[in-house]
């Protein structure tokens, strides 16, 4: 609770059993393992930190070039480079335990079994508060179709992870689907405690001089302000379709952006690409939420979650 202009502003939110001091989180893959930002950001103020996606074994990632700027956005094809779950626990958790914020571990695998094994290894570890399951990865058994585009596969991953952990499980949805509410309902039914969305849209860029793709991987994930309208629409749709909490992600850089997602029904938000160009984005969003609530005469951020008003036609 904070006091602005003599008013108490309560920013706390709950994602199932996970209680956050404020709804502002940092998105996986855009905030490293938090230490990278420790000189520039007051990490202790964040609602939660979602770390870079972790797999069972370390992954080297894709060949360069891996990133390219686009209009109001960027494409990345990092290829899920990460230190692996063991490296993470040995080399990254100690620093994270010293941060007075929630730590959420983003996990990824090539099969439901891998997701389950990861969940098991990350459970019962001091300092880990929840898991975020990245289902945008290709299922190697099913010929590389992403788990996140098939409700049955998403169900299987969610069930397997839930079976291996008592941590709150957030399932992170891919936007590259015809109807994201189908995916959201599938993982809700499978026991997800919350959903987060969106992951990146699939995009591409070509260097016309060399006639080659700008990314070595040819295609990559589009993120940043460019995708915000799509993300916001999907969050609004999903928030009306499920009864578990929704975490909004996609192009959020300012308090106004965050408020759009909260009004559309998100209980919390994640700041992604904005961390790259404005490391203090999350902190200034926290300040901006408080200022907005004070100006609007609200004493709790929870009052505005889903408070979008739509005129009857």
């Amino acid at each position: 609770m904070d006091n602005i202009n003599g008013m108490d502003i309560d920013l706390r939110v709950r994602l199932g059993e996970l209680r956050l001091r404020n709804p502002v989180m940092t998105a996986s893959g855009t905030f490293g393992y938090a230490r990278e930002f420790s000189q520039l950001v007051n990490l202790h103020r964040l609602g939660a930190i979602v770390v870079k996606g972790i797999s069972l074994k370390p992954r080297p990632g894709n060949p360069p070039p891996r990133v390219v700027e686009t209009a109001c956005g960027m494409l990345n094809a990092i290829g899920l480079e990460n230190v692996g779950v063991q490296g993470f626990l040995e080399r990254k958790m100690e620093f994270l335990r010293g941060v007075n914020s929630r730590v959420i571990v983003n996990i990824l695998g090539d099969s439901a079994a891998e997701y389950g094994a990861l969940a098991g290894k990350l459970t019962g570890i001091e300092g880990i508060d929840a898991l975020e399951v990245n289902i945008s990865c290709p299922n190697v058994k099913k010929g590389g179709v992403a788990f996140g585009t098939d409700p049955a596969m998403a169900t299987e991953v969610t069930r397997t992870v839930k079976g291996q952990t008592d941590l709150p499980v957030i399932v992170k949805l891919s936007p590259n689907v015809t109807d994201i509410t189908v995916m959201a309902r599938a993982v809700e039914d499978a026991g997800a405690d919350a959903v987060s969305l969106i992951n990146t849209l699939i995009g591409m860029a070509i260097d016309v001089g060399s006639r080659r793709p700008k990314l070595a991987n040819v295609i990559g994930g589009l993120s940043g302000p460019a995708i915000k309208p799509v993300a916001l629409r999907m969050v609004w749709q999903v928030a009306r379709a499920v009864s578990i909490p929704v975490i909004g992600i996609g192009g959020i850089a300012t308090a106004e952006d965050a408020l759009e997602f909260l009004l559309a029904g998100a209980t919390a938000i994640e700041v992604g690409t904005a961390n790259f160009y404005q490391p203090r984005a999350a902190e200034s969003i926290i300040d901006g939420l408080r200022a907005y609530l004070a100006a609007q005469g609200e004493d709790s951020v929870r009052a505005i979650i889903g408070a979008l008003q739509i005129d009857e036609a």
Partner: protein
Amino acid sequence: MPEFQEKAPLLQKEAIAPGIFRLTMHAPEIAGAAHPGQFVMVQVDTSMDPLLRRPFSVHQVTSGGNIQILFKVVGQGTARLARLTPGDQLDCIGPLGRGFFLDRRDRLCLIGGGMGIAPLYFLAKRLLQTGESPGDDYVFLGGRSREEISLFAAEFFDLGYTVKVSTDDGSMGHHGFVTDLLGPVLPDMERVYTCGPFPMMRIAAQKCGQAAVFCQVSLETHMACGLGACLGCTLTGADGRYIHVCRQGPVFDAEEVAWTT
């Protein structure tokens, strides 16, 4: 290592040659901490297009807490920087990355090609602080033309270095590659520092390798964050593993880099 984000007022803009500019900003925290070879991530505009910050080497730290960057207009980000006027503010993050290894004083050669000159001037100045005369140390500068290179040649000369120049058009110094200048002096050198186009640095690295001279290079790659978070700035290392330019570099020992790519 300390890092800062500063809204740095632009104090001076110098047009060095067509399309080449030097900006002086007041950024006392970054200036106080910067080491030669480190860089800053500069936000070129408040607009979301272009979205990402641009990396620039610290070209010089001057008294009163100022830093300089030197750049060439190559795209929309640098074009916008070139339009700024004194009084404008530049949001800078830095100093970032690992700079040149400066433990002790050797017989040195600094080789800069194009805008690769930028970090070398800061390096050359810092080296002076060791107290030894730079008269036996070489600075080789390569550029397109006299117009592009002559000011820098004079500035390094004024520091006391032995300066040689090459130009693409032959308008000043050697007509050809700047690395051509290295051969005659290499046997006498103990250490080479180089920054410039990849093919130029490759040649320098190869020559140094053959002569068993310690060589450091400053690499460029596309960067989204400069902070070690995005993992976008990889190049391939000598052992085939990926190296992350923003944190492990931008300065590397030449032998750490896979020069084949």
